[in-house]
């Protein structure tokens, strides 16, 4: 299976077999993503000694995160799945990142990604369960919440560095966020495909969490 993650600062492509990642390639410079993405896919397939027609599924990270990045990843994944006639699984990015992350039983894991200035995308997980769905938080409010939290917390994601600064103890798990996402998305997508639970290709779209600026300003909502 081919796995694509383009929501964050570092984008990544992985090839997985039975849900386990065999090869990963990253792109640090997101500004060249649309130019480089097929090259990245090609390099990853070669590293895994896999031909494109050997793929029997595509998994894509749906966000939240960079809207443009997500559109590039999701569009590429959809076209690959349509062109290859293989099933597509869209995986919420934060669920993927939390999937394989080890944390203590009493520890709460916050996945955080930058949004507009002063805001972050956030979701929380505890004991392997999602306890707070993705939403857009004011950074200051989230900092307050983290400071008042009972028990230890763990932070993961592109906004973890910024939030870590407000805490007195080490919470940031560090590492490459795209790697966590790719590993978790491969696992989730494999589990779903094994159940025959693919997504409707035509219905897959990024998780934006917010309407466009024009919709907010003008009070018009497009479905």
């Amino acid at each position: 299976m081919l796995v694509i993650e383009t929501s964050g600062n570092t984008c990544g492509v992985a090839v997985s077999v039975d849900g386990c990642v065999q090869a990963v390639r990253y792109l640090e410079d997101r500004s060249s993503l649309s130019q480089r993405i097929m090259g990245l896919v090609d390099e990853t397939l070669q590293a895994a000694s896999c031909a494109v027609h050997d793929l029997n599924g595509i998994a894509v990270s749906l966000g939240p995160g960079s809207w443009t990045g997500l559109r590039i990843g999701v569009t590429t994944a959809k076209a690959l799945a349509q062109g290859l006639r293989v099933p597509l699984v869209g995986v919420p990015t934060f669920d993927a990142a939390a999937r394989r992350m080890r944390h203590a039983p009493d520890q709460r894991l916050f996945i955080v990604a930058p949004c507009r200035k002063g805001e972050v995308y956030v979701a929380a997980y505890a004991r392997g369960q999602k306890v707070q769905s993705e939403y857009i938080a004011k950074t200051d409010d989230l900092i307050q919440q983290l400071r008042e939290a009972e028990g230890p917390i763990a932070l993961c994601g592109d906004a973890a560095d910024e939030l870590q600064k407000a805490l007195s103890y080490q919470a940031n798990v560090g590492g490459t966020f795209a790697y966590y996402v790719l590993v978790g998305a491969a696992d989730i997508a494999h589990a779903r495909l094994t159940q025959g639970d693919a997504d409707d290709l035509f219905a897959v779209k990024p998780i934006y969490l917010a309407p466009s600026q024009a919709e907010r300003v003008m009070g018009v909502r497009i479905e």
Partner: protein
Amino acid sequence: MNPLTHEPLNILGIETSCDETSVAVVRDGREILSNLVASQMDLHAKFGGVVPEVASRKHVELLNPVLHEALAEAQVGFDDVDAIAVTHGPGLIGSLLVGVCAAKALGYVHRKPVLPINHLEGHIYANFLVHEDIEFPFVCLIVSGGHTDLILMREHGIYEVLGRTRDDAAGEAFDKVARVLGLGFPGGPAIQKAAEGGNPHAIRFPRADMGATLDFSFAGLKTSVMRFMQGLPTPETRHLRASDVPLSDIAASFQQAVVDVLVRNLMSAAERFRVSTVALAGGVAANRCLRATATAAAHAAGLRLLIPPIALCTDNAAMIAEAGYFHFLRGERGDLDFDTFAVLPLLSPS
């Protein structure tokens, strides 16, 4: 026809530069096997103009089903496609990215060349979809919501820009004036409808003269209509009051002013560069007043005038596939790392 195999040559076209999601299959540069256009116009009308983020999101949702339908209608599989032509500029970056990324992924999977096409070149090539016998050189007027360009085309792929607008594009002027007249978006069809039965000579709105150049300017005309509607005096309209003039006359007079300038420059260019053929292209070329005025002027000057059918004037993927066909015939095969461009001048290959 494929010059090597003598098999039919099918080009898959993808166009997502603005608010239309379009996929087409064109055979041998002549036969439109399918040309599907999913318009988002109704959505954007709610905002009074195209919202880039909304357009980008809709392209992600619409492209795959439109692609599926276009191939099904053409009764063509990916194996029968010889190359994929996709618009990579000029246009809205977020919108362009959707078509370009899909084209690259499909090209990669099926090992088909992916040819990046300039949207403006596509508009010109709408004419080649309907005429096999176009003689070079000819002058083409590209008029749309984003562009007003006079192009001298010397050969396939060889362009010279003779003139362009210095401020608003013609279609933009239609949109802005339609808003002032309370006619809604998009302005071109709205003004054309409002102008029906109106007297195009009721008000002599200004026609910008850009001296010896073949450039255009519509800002002064737009301001004149605005001042007129606000009851402010203008040199051209001082004896008239907006409340005394029927809306149809105002719309018709504005429309005629735009069209007069467009046709004047097209004819001047034809004379200056001694061509015997002139052409129209772009969304505004769907305007009946422009088509009629240009037809009369070309006839009077003894010129051949090419105008694509209306469905090929507005944004569509068949014109992109058509331009791609000629790129393919020239031996271009493309690679998968090309970029997208908000601004992309129509240049000849160096």
